[in-house]
């Protein structure tokens, strides 16, 4: 065994363990390790670390794949509604929807998108049952409401006209959102069904449309120019889509 001429570097030790070292250098590194017990111990500890990781996590790869991750199922979810400037893809939540994570408890933290929609749905549930004080500013003061929310939120808040679907503006309020303020508008039909439109700074510019469903209610979510929109209503999906489409059209027109 010959002592290597060039000292072995830290990088080379890592490369050696990870099988990234050029073959011609391997032997020299092995000779170095034989002569340097400290380095040899470190290399050994990294190998143990890898073994620990595999012992801990390989079992996950052997678990049966949960139904919600099956390709067939994911492919079959509706992909219609390619709409407007954005290719809005509607993805039904299979399994772990909003209702799913709420039941899951506070210990787990859901993904950013679910947080956002969950906040909106929570506000929807809280205020739509309110008879006397559902809003802070009534719909009769539409102009003032829009100016106030726009000023506080920092993006153009426009209360969409939903009269064509039989919905009248009840009014709105300011809410704490996931990252700063959120605007919250409520609409009502003659028969008393209520829809809400929630907007807040979106975690991404991302623009695909998603559907989330709870027990009694459901929401459609999308983001546009960094603002996220959540339209919440009853569990009738077609009706919800009809309303969401109108909201979407009008927010597009504003170019906000």
């Amino acid at each position, binding site marked *: 065994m010959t002592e290597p001429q060039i000292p072995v570097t830290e990088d080379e030790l890592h490369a050696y363990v990870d099988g990234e070292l050029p073959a011609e250098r391997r032997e020299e590194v092995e000779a170095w390790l034989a002569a340097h017990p400290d380095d040899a111990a470190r290399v050994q500890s990294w190998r143990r670390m890898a073994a620990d*990781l595999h012992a801990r*996590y390989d079992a*996950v790869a052997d678990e049966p794949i949960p139904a919600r991750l099956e*390709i067939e199922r994911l492919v079959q979810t509706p992909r219609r509604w390619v709409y407007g400037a954005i290719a809005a893809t509607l993805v039904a939540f299979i399994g772990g929807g909003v209702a799913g994570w709420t039941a899951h408890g*506070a210990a787990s933290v859901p*993904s950013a998108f679910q947080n956002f929609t969950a906040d909106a749905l929570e506000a929807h549930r809280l205020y739509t049952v309110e008879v006397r004080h559902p809003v802070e500013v009534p719909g009769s003061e539409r102009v003032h409401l829009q100016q106030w929310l726009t000023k506080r939120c920092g993006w153009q808040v426009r209360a969409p006209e939903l009269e064509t679907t039989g919905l009248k503006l009840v009014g709105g309020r300011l809410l704490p959102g996931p990252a700063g303020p959120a605007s919250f508008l409520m609409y009502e039909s003659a028969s008393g069904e209520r829809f809400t439109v929630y907007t807040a700074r979106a975690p991404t510019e991302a623009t695909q449309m998603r559907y989330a469903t709870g027990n009694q209610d459901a929401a459609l979510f999308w983001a546009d120019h960094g603002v996220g929109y959540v339209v919440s209503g009853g569990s009738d999906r077609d009706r919800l889509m009809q309303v969401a489409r109108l909201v979407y059209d009008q927010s597009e027109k504003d170019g906000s």
Partner: protein
Amino acid sequence: MTAFRESVEAMIPALRRYARALARDAEIADDLVQDTLVRALRSERLFIGGDIKSWLYTILTNLNKNRRRSLARRPQHLPLLENNPDASGTEAEGRDIARALATLVEEQRSVLLLVMLEGLSYREVADIQGVPIGTVMSRLARARAHVKAYLDGERPSLRRVK
């Protein structure tokens, strides 16, 4: 099923393993995998060849980064009592490594797992993280040193307390 979908499907077990180690919570991990798959399948027609495996790891890594960025702005929810079944006696060793991972910063944890658990090359990890190979190597070295220090420090101290 198309060849593309078959390749994606074949990766699900490995993606779940990586996500579990990365995100720790099983539910969140599968959320990440689901979002990754949905995104990948939606881009089927945009995918013009290349390495599907690296591409999937890239999507998942980025999704997790975005998730954490938005979490940083929310109050943190922690269990009051450690009653996670994973953490019970039988897997004391595994619990150590899981906790050690939790103390790493995001990029270092990702590098460590992609190299040591998923067996990717430095080159592949560099592409996934969008950084030079040198950065991957320094992140890996720091991650290993940190985990080693954590494990070395943790074991004797547990004995001392008892």
